């Protein structure tokens, strides 16, 4: 464990967690507003400027950040101050830690920690996100926030189960839970011409996974914990940077989901038919990293557009969907995959 290794790892952490994830998350706040504006026939953010440069409203995340930092940090009366302060951090940290095992490019240089328990690690750490939402709502001393945090806890626990089971098919086909190896496995070709991407071999799992992970991230149509027209959300009492942390964590989680879906179902850094082993180096490697980032951005866009199209489920409908439809379907998917694999 020498110094260069430590420094390299630190550099990777900074580049991946703070430069890639946080900046993409911040840009997504702009993206969501701009996209919703396009969807809704509006202009959207276009005013914030630095020296007259508005850049399509891209200065808005900076303005938002400045605003969040300078606003009053309000703690409601009767709140549990300790947990009230802890909750936004608990919400923000897990999605960032998850990036430790996501391979951004071929080889061990493009991943912070190439664990062979990769996907399980993501679930373990990602599951911690529940605490932020639940404790945030509970500690605010507000009935609406309490309802929101109850909804959040119930919903996130329910969907975590089927989210994990959806991926079992992928594990069985590629024979590994390490993300790097799954990506390598997706470089193979089916019948000599079709890239063996996860979405090709496990299309049902992809749809179920996206559904479950959007529910896990509490975004429309599963945004009941926020449910701004009913209970106003678990983060109702938060203001200033604490609220911004909740807000940003949601967007970083969008990036996490997109990165996971890209890695597991869209071949990660694979460019079809080009250098499946990732040994070429040079410009091809640059292209592969760019391909990964491109896939992530595309999947982020998919999540945003769903958010602005669909209405919200009701609490019992969310539970019924999770337990009565998604869970049996993912179990069926596992059985079907096993049968097909056994026959081949």
């Amino acid at each position, binding site marked *: 464990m020498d110094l260069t290794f430590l420094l390299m790892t630190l550099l990777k952490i900074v580049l991946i967690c703070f430069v890639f994830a946080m900046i993409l998350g911040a840009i997504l706040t702009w993206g969501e507003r701009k996209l*919703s504006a396009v*969807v*809704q*026939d*509006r202009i959207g953010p276009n005013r914030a400027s630095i020296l007259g440069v508005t850049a399509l409203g891209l200065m808005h995340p900076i303005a938002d950040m400045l605003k969040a930092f300078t606003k009053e940090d309000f703690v409601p009366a009767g709140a549990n101050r300790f947990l009230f302060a802890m909750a936004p951090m608990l919400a923000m940290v897990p999605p960032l830690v998850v990036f430790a095992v996501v391979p951004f490019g071929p080889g061990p240089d493009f991943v912070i920690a190439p664990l062979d328990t990769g996907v399980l690690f993501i679930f373990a750490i990602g599951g911690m996100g529940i605490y932020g939402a639940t404790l945030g709502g509970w500690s605010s001393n507000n*009935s*609406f926030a*309490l*309802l929101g945090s*109850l*909804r959040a806890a119930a919903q996130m626990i329910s969907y975590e189960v089927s989210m994990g089971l959806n991926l079992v098919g992928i594990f069985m086909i590629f024979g590994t839970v390490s993300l790097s190896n799954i990506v390598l496995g997706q470089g193979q070709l089916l019948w000599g011409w079709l890239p063996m991407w996860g979405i090709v071999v496990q299309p049902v799992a992809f749809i179920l996974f996206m559904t479950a992970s959007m529910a896990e991230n509490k975004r*429309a*149509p599963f*945004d*009941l914990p926020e*449910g*701004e*027209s*009913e*209970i*106003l959300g678990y983060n109702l009492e938060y203001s200033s940077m604490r609220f911004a942390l909740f807000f940003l964590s949601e967007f970083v989680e969008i990036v996490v989901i997109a990165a996971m879906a890209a890695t597991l179902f869209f071949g990660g850094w694979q460019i079809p038919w080009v250098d499946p082993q990732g040994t070429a180096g040079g410009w091809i490697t640059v292209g592969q990293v760019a391909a990964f980032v491109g896939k992530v951005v595309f999947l982020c866009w998919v999540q945003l557009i769903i958010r*602005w*199209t*669909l*209405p*919200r*489920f*009701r*609490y*019992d*409908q969310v539970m019924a969907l999770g337990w009565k439809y998604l869970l049996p379907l993912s179990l069926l998917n596992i059985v079907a995959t096993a049968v097909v694999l056994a026959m081949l």
Partner: protein
Amino acid sequence: MDAICEPNVHLVEEDGEMILNMGPHHPSTHGVLRMILSMDSEVIRCLSADLGYLHRGIEKIGESIPWQGFMPYTDRVDYLGAMFVNHGYAMAVERLLGVEVPPRAEYLRVVADELNRIASHIICIGSVTMDLGAYTPFLHGIREREKINDIIEEWCGARLTYNYMRIGGVSFDLTPGLKIKILEFLDGFEVFVQEFNNLISFNEIFIKRCAGVGTITPEDAVGYGLIGPNLRASGVDFDVRRDHPYGVYPELDFDVCVGRGIKGEVGDVYDRFWLRIEEMLQSVRLIRQAIERMPMGPIMGKVPKKIKPEKGASAHSRVEGARGDLFTYVMSNGTVNPHRIHIRTGSFNAFSIVEKLAPGMMIADLVALFASLDIIAPETDR
């Protein structure tokens, strides 16, 4: 659910209950209304409706100003349907005085009323979708409503509180350019309705959230005095425009839409939502006919400068407003000021039935029910 729910009494936390104070500032009360809920986690055990936050004493104000001067106040009764209250008050005073309204003015009133009806229904169906979490359809609706606002602004100078009608006629005539604009809007509006339906009305999640939720039986609808679209959605075939005709409505051809329970039961949230969409299309038909058949002529009847009806005379009018049967009663005491003005609106009754329907409902359904009843806060109190 065998716990007895007594609204206004049931305000303490009983075993396992949580009191939730919804309003007066809550995004889904659409104005300042308050509901106190006794919740069993997500399920409502009891609801106490509380209003009076927007009482401005409009009817009392009317007693101290001249007959003509009350017209702008009628705008404030119902901010989404100012035209109907204008119309109702003008008609009541015309009946009191026995003034004849010229036919062109009557047709203009129909055009203005129906445009306003579309604008109001857009807000209602938009807020149903918005309260169910779909923000986009609402803003698409707002875009169309904006066009109506532009048309009416060009027509009478105001976008919300129109103050368009006068005792004995209307204030401004329709210019030929505006006529073309209205027809163009109507063509675009039918396309919008198609698009809106594809976006949200036939969305599976939306149907699941609305169908079979908040069902009002015809007996309850009549018993609680619901009016307008809420009443018709429950399967009661009643429309003032057809059953107590006024103006030139008997000469125009339109259908009265009645709830049929197309996705769930008759009188559920989806029926009320769908009925308003159908009514908007009927309004489009009405406006087209009215513009086509509109005769030339004056827009104001012969009204005395100083309105001074004889003492004790009284009159009433009924107008089919966006929220239903709008009843206006006026009485004179022989001076230039009215003795009594009363306006009967629908939102008060619509709000009262929420207390009956809410127990056993989930809070998310309450929001849908509330939006589908199209309750306008200032209209409950006046």
